[in-house]
Structures are given as structure tokens and as C-alpha cells.
């Protein structure tokens, strides 16, 4: 993995949303949505960011695209300091970084035809109008909506959920980016359609040397798509490394719990395996627990976990874990 060129490097990224409370909207407290995460992503690689709702994975996606500005930290993308870029420099680097959303009905303009929707990225890039239809048709073909002529003048609501997600992918692919951030891109789809879209994304990755940052809560999707995985809990990465290793031998108790809670479509396996049930709910990111943030739900909690915060430490083979059990 080290030989591949690193295209994205995130270090100590933080986003705190101040809470408006009190008489004069003085804010003393804040939601610590992302609270110091670091990771890197190589070319042609897929990294999955997993975690439950409220762990900060979608905030991370927005930060990477600079849809919101971080509280602190750095993002290096294609060798440049992405956070300090402005104006045209920012626009030209942003072309290399696209996003696919979960809710296709919300992210595609209902009043525009597919031709208009898919022309927009090219227009933004200054492609002459005469060549647009050809380019859009090529895109539709690429994502398996062929013959393109059938689809060009349709509206998003005329398509099925799977077809709409294909449009979302086509739009992200238009300017041939290096990195695509997929925020729960297949979560709303039915089983059979989900597999179709994942196959499409894998094919496009090989064809265009894409890197994916896949944000999801679905570990089965991670297993079938990603090379690397980072598990988030309350704004922090608790474990990261190669998917194969983490799935066969998870070190962090939270990763273990996530894996054991994910249902497997195999009745014998499902009834044999030992379940690790976590107590309670995820605590609020406004006042995350002191010490290790997972200690309130951890079955292996020690007194040290309540006092000190464990750091994400390298364990070799690209594996890193933040837990005192593995010090």
C-alpha cells in the first residue's frame, strides 16, 4: 500500500459546532462532531468511514469538500493545502473531488431533465455547448443507462431509485475526478439494486483509476468494496486499517460490537455466533464522556479508561487502534 501515491491526507481535523444558548446567545458549549481525526487515502484505493449516526462521518464528508470549514486541522489533497486555497485555485482543485449523496430525490433538481443535470458540470468547466449532448450521452452510457437517447429528456422522478443513483454517479464522474466521496450512496437501495450500483462503482474505479471515500453505516458494504476502513465513534477514529484484517480480527471492543451486531444472511452462522450486546445509547457529542469516549458502553472497561483518553496507536501492518487493552 505504501507504494501507491497518497492523494488525500487529513490530519487532526476538527469541527465543533457552537451551541446557541443562554440569554445573549453566548455559547459556552459546542457539539464536537469531528474531534481530531487523521487518515490518508492512496490513489485507486477505497477507504470506508464507518460508524453509527452522530459519529461525525457525514460532517467529515462535508469538511473534505469544504462545504463547511473546519475548526482546526489540515487537509492535503493532491499535494496542496486544500484549506488555504481560494478562488480559481480552489475551483480547479475541486474538480478532482466530487460527491455522491444518499438521497437522490433531494440531490437532483426535479425541474431539470437529465440532459440539463448532467450538462451542468461541463458548463461550469467551460465546455462549449455544441459538444454537450455527446458528452452527456457518453456519461449515461458509462453508468449503464443506454441507449442514452431514451434518458436525455427525462426528469429524475421518472426514474427508479437505482437509476437515479446512476445519474448521481454520472454527475460526479463528469469531470473525471481523482476522488469521489460517497455519503451513504447505496443505503437507501434495495438488496438487488444495491449490488448493481456497487458493481458499477467498482467497474468505474478500475476504468478511471478512482479513489473512493465511502461513508456508510453498513459493514457488509464495507466488506465488499473497501480496501481500508476507519471506524468512528463520537467524532474520533477508534480503529483503522486494512478491511480484511479488521473484519477477521477486530481489536477495538466497539469494532467487535459493530461486527457482531451486523446480521449475516446465514441461519446456521447467525445462530452459532456469539453476540456482543452493547448497553445503552451513544452518548451526546456535546458532553462526550471523559477518558475513552466508549467507556460508558464498553464491556471491558477498566478504571484507567474513565480517566485517560487512549491515543490511536500503530500496531503494524497499517493497523491502528485507540484502546488501552492493546497497549
Amino acid at each position: 500500500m505504501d507504494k501507491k501515491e497518497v492523494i488525500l491526507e487529513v490530519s487532526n481535523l476538527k469541527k465543533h459546532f457552537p451551541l446557541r444558548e443562554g440569554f445573549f446567545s453566548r455559547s459556552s458549549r459546542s457539539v464536537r462532531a469531528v474531534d481530531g481525526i487523521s487518515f490518508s487515502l492512496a490513489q485507486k484505493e477505497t477507504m470506508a468511514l464507518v460508524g453509527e449516526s452522530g459519529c461525525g462521518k457525514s460532517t467529515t464528508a462535508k469538511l473534505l469538500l469544504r462545504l463547511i470549514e473546519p475548526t482546526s486541522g489540515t487537509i492535503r489533497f493532491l499535494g496542496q493545502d486544500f484549506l488555504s486555497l481560494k478562488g480559481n485555485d480552489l475551483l480547479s482543485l475541486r474538480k478532482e473531488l466530487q460527491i455522491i449523496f444518499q438521497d437522490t430525490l433531494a440531490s437532483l433538481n426535479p425541474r431539470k431533465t437529465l440532459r440539463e443535470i448532467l450538462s451542468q458540470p461541463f458548463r461550469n468547466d467551460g465546455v462549449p455547448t455544441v459538444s454537450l449532448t455527446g458528452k452527456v450521452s457518453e456519461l449515461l452510457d458509462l453508468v449503464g443507462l443506454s441507449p442514452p437517447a431514451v434518458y436525455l429528456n427525462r426528469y429524475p422522478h421518472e426514474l427508479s431509485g437505482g437509476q437515479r443513483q446512476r445519474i448521481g454517479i454520472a454527475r460526479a464522474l463528469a469531470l473525471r475526478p481523482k476522488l469521489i466521496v460517497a455519503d451513504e450512496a447505496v443505503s437507501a437501495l434495495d438488496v438487488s439494486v444495491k449490488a448493481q450500483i456497487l458493481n458499477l462503482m467498482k467497474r468505474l474505479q478500475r476504468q478511471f483509476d478512482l479513489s473512493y471515500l465511502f461513508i456508510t453505516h453498513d459493514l457488509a458494504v464495507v466488506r465488499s468494496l473497501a480496501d481500508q476502513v476507519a471506524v468512528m465513534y463520537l467524532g474520533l477514529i477508534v480503529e483503522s486499517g486494512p478491511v480484511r484484517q479488521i473484519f477477521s480480527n477486530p481489536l477495538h471492543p466497539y469494532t467487535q460490537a459493530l461486527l457482531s451486531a451486523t446480521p449475516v444472511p446465514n441461519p446456521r452462522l447467525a445462530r452459532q455466533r456469539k453476540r456482543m450486546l452493547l448497553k445503552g445509547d451513544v452518548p451526546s457529542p456535546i458532553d462526550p464522556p471523559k477518558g475513552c469516549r466508549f467507556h460508558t458502553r464498553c464491556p471491558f472497561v477498566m478504571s484507567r479508561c474513565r480517566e485517560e483518553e487512549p491515543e490511536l496507536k500503530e500496531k503494524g501492518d497499517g493497523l491502528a487502534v485507540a484502546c488501552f487493552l492493546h497497549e
Partner: protein
Amino acid sequence: MNNVLLEIKGLKTYFHTGLGTVRAVDGVSLRVLKGEAVGLVGESGCGKTMTAHSIMKLVPTPPGVIEEGELWFRDMDLLKLPDYDMRKIRGREISMVFQDPMTYLNPVMKIGKQIAEVMSGPPQERLVVGLLESVGIPEPSKVANQYPHELSGGMRQRVLIAIAMANDPALLIADEPTTALDVTIQAQILDLIKTIKTEKGTSLLLITHDLGIVADMCDRVYVMYAGKIAESGDVYSIFEEPLHPYTQGLLRSSLSIAEFRETLETIEGTVPNLLDPPSGCRFHPRCPMAMSICKEKEPTLTQQKPGHEVCCWLFEDDGQKRSNP
């Protein structure tokens, strides 16, 4: 047949809309035995939820109408039951847990009051608190005085289960009870439903799109496609020897954390529009094994081995597998 709790025969629930008739449930037969956990699986729009709503006679009318069929619960045909008697069944004999608890809880009524409301007899705080405790709610007496919005999604689902279990029903229908929840919370809720089932002997009809949940929870499974039952059998034969091409496709395209597949198998195309379903077998446009007869005639559900039924032309009445021309 004394151990049959619920028996549905040829249920048809149609929706008469301005665009035409949507045959959401089109001849479904299904049986739940006492103490049994039955799964009803299928993709969105296949009629799973409408089957459940038909059992409770909660189909919005108009436009929905239960056109045909029999709904036997114990020795009563629910379809012939007057509304007054049906009200005594709902929430007492058969109760239901839904996907989105916020929609089914009253936002301006305290949790405790909502539970007391469904309990028969004079409301007793002690009973309400005990019920909340039995579904694993910490600090039950505090929660009884809270409003739904003050609780997390998992806690609200527990409250809904408490309401459903308040009168010790014989049958619990759970419609995607954990779809909106995070995995670790989903595991807690499924565990709770399992515990209730073993302790009280409640029968369970679990409606879900997640084959993993069915594999874990159910004794028998019905696979639904486009308003019809495609295949049914015990959980092991459905997962290990699926007969219907749709079941096979569904299983092959499901992702699992237990194995890695380079290319995922898929079922081509999408679920048909039930306003205008395909002729013959409704699965034929997507079926890799489709034959000419599949376009023309509808197959019937036939038994292949004891307890395993399939609705497919590949299987003749004598159980012989037809060759693919």
C-alpha cells in the same frame, strides 16, 4: 390444526386509484403457528406492509379495499368480524410494532399515559413502570413522565414494544422494527423481541427486507415478490436450498460481512409497477431462467417437499425439475 394461530387464505388487497388498480397484495396465503416466528421478506413495494395492515384491517379505505380472501385468527374470520369486535382484537390479541415509532407515538402525551391507555382495567402506575422495565428501559419511572421527543430512537422503539406487549397479545406483527436504528441498537431491539417471544410464547410475524435479520430470528420464511408469495419454507431450506430464481437472486446479491466477493451477483432490472404487472409470472422479465410459458401463464404455489412451497414453472406439480429449453 389446533396449533394454527393465524391463517390467511388468498388475500387480495387492491388500491383503486385514478391511474388504475394497484394490486398490492394479490392472492397471498400465509400461516403462523402458535409460538412461531415467521418472516415475510421482499424488496420495497412488494406488498409486505400491506399484508400486515390487512391482517389488522388497517388498510386505508378508500382507496384500499380487501377484495377477497379469508383471515382466520384462531376460529374467527377477521374479515367477517364487525368493527366493534375487531377493536377488541387489535392491540389485545394481535398487536403491531412499526418502523418509525415517532409517527405512532403521540408527541403531546406522556409515555406513561400512552401505555396506560392501552392497558385493560384501571390504569396503575406500578404496572406501567413494570412494563417499561421489562422492555429494558433504564429509569422507567422517569421515562413514564417524559414525552416521546425526549427519548432516543432505540428507546422510542422500546416504548412501542411495551405498548404492543401491554395486553400480552398472542401475535406480534413487527413491520421493519429496526430499519431506522443503528446496528448496535438494532441488535438490542432484536434481542428484546427474542426474549419476549421465548418468555411469553408470543407468535411473531416479522416483516423485513433484511435477510440477515430473518436468518437470525425466524423459524419459517415467506418470500414475497410483486404482491405474491414466491416461495415459502423453513429458514434452513430457504437459505440453503432456495428454489425460486428470485429467492436465489436475492440471496446471491445480499452482502455479508462474512465473505468477500469480487463481483456481486445481481438481479437485473427493478421491481415492476403494480399498476401494470407483467403477464404470467411477475418475475419473468428479470428471471434468468424464464421460459415461454412464464410470459403466458401464472404459476401456482406447489409443494416441493413437506413445508417447502414454490411458485415457479420450473417446478411441475410432481416435483420434477423442468429442463430449461
